[in-house]
């Protein structure tokens, strides 16, 4: 028996919005510790890794590990029927799950809606990116990051990220011209939306596709802050933490040369 009750239903809605552009079908791997999802996008340039810890649910029950194969588009459509303040309960039979039942309760408990989503059998390799110590780790406002990506998209499809000791520079070069945004280290604690912290072992300079970064920033509503991890010739990590409930991580392969 699997049952998970999420008091902040909006969280699940936002999560789905964040990943459904990248992935169409994926397995939610459920076990005692929580719900995880790992999937690559179709062109194998980006990977989504999602974790919802059991602590985020009240209650959470999962007797044994199993997978829920979901068409994310369908799930997102059903979740649109849930109100932002609704409490969402997920239920499934962990022995032979062929459907996932979703129950949305309004805060005042006056309206209860129930949906059932037919599950898929997805045969897919399980891929993950090993945890690494990044040469540069940046924590900054997620809204700011989204804005930078959106702005530079005007100039080009790709962005260079250069991290030095006290500043991070996003720059783009295109047919019509160039553009760059420089953020200085700013450890101001009182205004978290302006806070920029850089932890650096050595300076890095990498290029990424803005199209994907734009997709990643769909995770902005999940968290005020975003963490970027960069190492030379390694994938970029973009992480949105959802307090104790879990995290969503996006990995993006660096652009090499012509590609």
């Amino acid at each position: 028996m699997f049952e998970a009750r999420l008091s902040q239903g909006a969280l699940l809605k936002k999560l789905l919005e964040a990943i459904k552009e990248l992935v169409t079908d994926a397995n939610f791997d459920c076990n005692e510790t929580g719900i995880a999802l790992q999937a690559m996008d179709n062109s194998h340039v980006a990977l989504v890794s999602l974790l919802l810890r059991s602590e985020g649910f009240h209650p959470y029950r999962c007797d044994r590990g199993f997978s829920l194969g979901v068409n994310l588009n369908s799930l997102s459509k059903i979740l649109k029927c849930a109100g932002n303040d609704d409490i969402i309960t997920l239920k499934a039979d962990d022995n032979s799950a062929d459907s996932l039942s979703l129950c949305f309760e309004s805060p005042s408990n006056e309206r209860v809606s129930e949906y059932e989503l037919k599950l898929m059998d997805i045969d897919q390799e399980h891929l993950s990116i090993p945890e690494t110590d990044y040469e540069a780790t940046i924590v900054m406002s997620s809204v700011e990051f989204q804005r930078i990506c959106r702005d530079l998209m005007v100039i080009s499809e790709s962005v260079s990220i250069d991290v030095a000791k006290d500043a991070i520079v996003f720059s783009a070069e295109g047919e019509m011209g160039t553009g760059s945004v420089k953020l200085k280290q700013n450890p101001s604690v009182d205004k978290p939306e302006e806070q920029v912290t850089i932890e650096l072992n050595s300076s890095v300079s990498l290029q990424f596709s803005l199209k994907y970064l734009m997709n990643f920033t769909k995770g902005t509503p999940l968290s005020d802050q975003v963490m970027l991890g960069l190492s030379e010739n390694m994938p970029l990590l973009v992480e949105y933490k959802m307090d104790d409930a879990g995290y969503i991580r996006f990995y993006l392969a660096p652009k090499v040369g012509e590609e």
Partner: protein
Amino acid sequence: MSTFSTRNKKKANAPSSFENQLALLQDSESANAEKAHQVWTRPSVPNIDPNRDSIIFQQIEIDDTIDPESREPIIRMFGITEIGNSVLCYVTGFRPYFYIPAPIGFKENDLSNLQKQITRAIQPENSLKKPIERIELTFKESIWGYHGNKKSQFLKIIFSEVRAMNVARRLIEDGAIKYNERQLREMTFESNISYVLRFMIDCKVTGANWIELPPKNYNLRTNSLETSTCQLEIDIKYDRFISHPPEGEWSKVAPLRILSFDIECAGRKGIFPDPTEDPVIQIANMVTRQGEKHPFIRNVFTLNSCAPIVATDVIECYDQGKMLQAWRDFVIEVDPDVIIGYNTTNFDFPYLLDRAQHLNVKKFPYLGRMKGIKTEAKDTKFSSKAYGTRENKFINLEGRLQLDMLQVMQRDHKLRSYTLNSVCAHFLGEQKEEVHHSIITDLQNGNDESRRRLAIYCLKDAILPQRLMDKLMCIINYLEMARVTGVPFNYLLSRGQQIKVISQLYRKAFEQNLVIPALKSEGSDDQFEGATVIEPERGFYNVPIATLDFSSLYPSIMIAHNLCYTTLLDIKDIDKLGDVDYITTPYNNAKFVKVHHRKGLLPTILEDLLSARKKAKADLKKETDPFKKAVLDGRQLALKISANSVYGFTGATVGKLPCIEISASVTAYGRQMIEKTKQEVESQYTIANGYQHDAHIIYGDTDSVMVKFGVDNLVDAMALGREAADYVTRKFVKPIKLEFEKVYFPYLLINKKRYAGLYWTNPDKWDKLDTKGIETVRRDNCLLVQNVIETCLRKMLIDRDVSGAEEYAKKTISDLLQNKIDMSQLVITKALSKSDYSAKQPHHELAERMRKRDAGSAPTLGDRVAYVIVKSTKGAAAYEKSEDPIYVLENNIPIDTNYYLENQLSKPLLRIFEPILGDKAQSLLAGDHTRVVQIATPTIGGLMKFAVKTATCLGCKTPLSKKDTAVCRHCKPKLGELYQRQLDTVNKLEVHFARLWTQCQRCQGSLHQDILCSSKDCPIWYMRKKAQKDVQDANNLLERFNYAW
């Protein structure tokens, strides 16, 4: 899997190797007590006494030349006698001419004056002393329009040579000649026909007929005079020989020698062979006498040593130039009448010629029969409405016919692919290995065994065109076409449809004293209304549907209404002509006189063709000899095609003699007749008239209508069909005839020109499954579509199992989503034509990408590009998602299964299921069977080099912790069962792979050697590659169980 095993069974009985076949050839030969050494030369010439013996030969090619001394034009006829001697017959004395209408009041004694005037006008441009032989005053009639059967005066101007004629024609048409102080500006008649064709028409010579030279009339040249390599050279006057019409005894075919050859070049890695760099290393030859089953000469010229091959002469050469020279000498000695091959015109011949020039082999480029005429490759462009525009090389081989089977295939058959391999698979049911040109060099540089390997491959390529030609009876059909239409053999491949009609038109006009105006062809885009289509009533009919066809609709309309150039009536002339009977056609009030005033020329030609066809068909029924049967069948087919092309000729606006009044009237009549048929049938076959049901026409197109008589059994439907055909025929003018041909039962009518049905001509057994316009042959679809549609139709119509068909479609979709469909089924091919497309196309983009990856193996212009659609970012266009199937296989790139479902399968499937299931058809594309998917993990892609695979439980797919390697702790109890299952899978896959491997070995003809083949057309090849990978993957999985014990 199932297709493979049946294939395997079939193959097991067939001779397993090409070498065995060669060996068999020798066995049969030694039984015939023929010597092991193959004799190249032709049989020697018997003694001929020009005063007593006549010489009879079948001419196969006619061309013209100019006598070097007298500068007279001379006709050359090349031919073969019945015992196989080659003949070159020079025909002298025939002069080119044309007609002009005589100026008003022209008298016999004005002739010499006119001749002088024209001669004077021509002379500045022509150095001949006497360009005009003479002018004759004749009475002729123009073919254009009806003018009361009155002949008028025409001047026949006879020239001493062709160029003078062309100058005179231009001057007269432009009005540049003065005669009696007045400008002579006239339309010329019959001036736009070639000298050779003129000769053939006037001397009643048809294509490839038999010519008899009576004794005392010819001059047999002695050896010293010989100008060619022919065994007999003869001079004769153009009016002294007998041309036998190809009937009865004279429909036989001389023992033509047919050479089929193929060359191999040693290219450099990744670069297509270039004659200035890469040597020709082997030339394989097969020579067959027409009518015999097996080649009597089989040899291969090799550069460097080569191990012996059974029943084949291996001619080893150690110098490239000497090898080319040896081959040239061989060709001259064998003296083939027909040279065939696959893509010889555009590749083999030009390559040999260029290579010989590069190596400075001076004597090489003399491959024709005329001594001293150099063989060259020239560029030509051929453009025809029926065949499209093609750029080709033209190779001059005087006196020899060329039949490039590739061109024949492209002309006569619509196929998915035109590689020799796939054409043979299609027509002969025989695969051949395809050695990529980069491997050839390695084989050549190996030892004499590896060169032998290559030689066998090359020999096979040489014999396949011959087999193909025999199977399709190309020679017979083309000969018959040449005979029926009266054009030289080589026109059939190098010219379009029109020339055949022109030839017949001129021949008939010649008999009837008619002359044909030389119209300047003006391209106009005027389109007239085409054939009519009765709006189809879509649906699935589970009752017999009878089909009534007008036999030879357009020809019979032309005959019935006497539609012709000669009967066309100008409204202005009606009063002048007084009392004429005419009909007004449904097109624009065009008028034609009735048959008692004048019988049209076209109707006469058509009647002859149709009755000849009837006769050929009747003879065909009686004939028992398979060879003669083939000739007759070829003839009746040629006659049918010719009859139908007459209508097209009158409608060809850029043609030689277009007449929109005729062609548009024909289609207008056709439309009326279909409508009338519908009315007649529907008003006659009613319950009111005592029939069981009301008949209903559910569809009609051009020359046929589909009738639902309402009866539920075949016997009644057929009886009614026959009755209705006779009933309606009576309502029409003779010889228009409505025929009952077949019954479709059941019948699936999808749309206009799109239907399928089970075809019955007798009530006991169906004939075939007939489909029109359904995605089974279109090449821009993948094979999967073709197979699914075919199988579904089969299940629906033959097995009458609609739910079975549904199940099958669902199963296929489900397999597709789980990546269980074989890659070869998903490959789409398209020819890479122009190098710049305005819109981006998948195959073009892919070729570009492949060029970046490896310029050498990338497809070049003209190649067919094979591609599959792979997964990519959301919203990516198809051209960004095309990928090389081999690259996909090697890197395990996921296929975009949704693309195949939505863009390839869905429409054709819905189309055939909608008439049956209605709205429910949509359920085929979604539903439970689409919920099991497999997503492949590629080995390349931006992130793949960083990602790590986490092992998942083999029982329940949950990710495993580090210490478990096969199953999670919940599945532990099932470990044994799972292991057994995996072991089973591995075994099955191994067997599968081993079978595919032997299949390929069989195909290459040896079970001891590695497989070289990389044929992209071969489904087995893809299966083999895939199977190899599957075995490997399954084995890797199996190894994960190792920890347990």
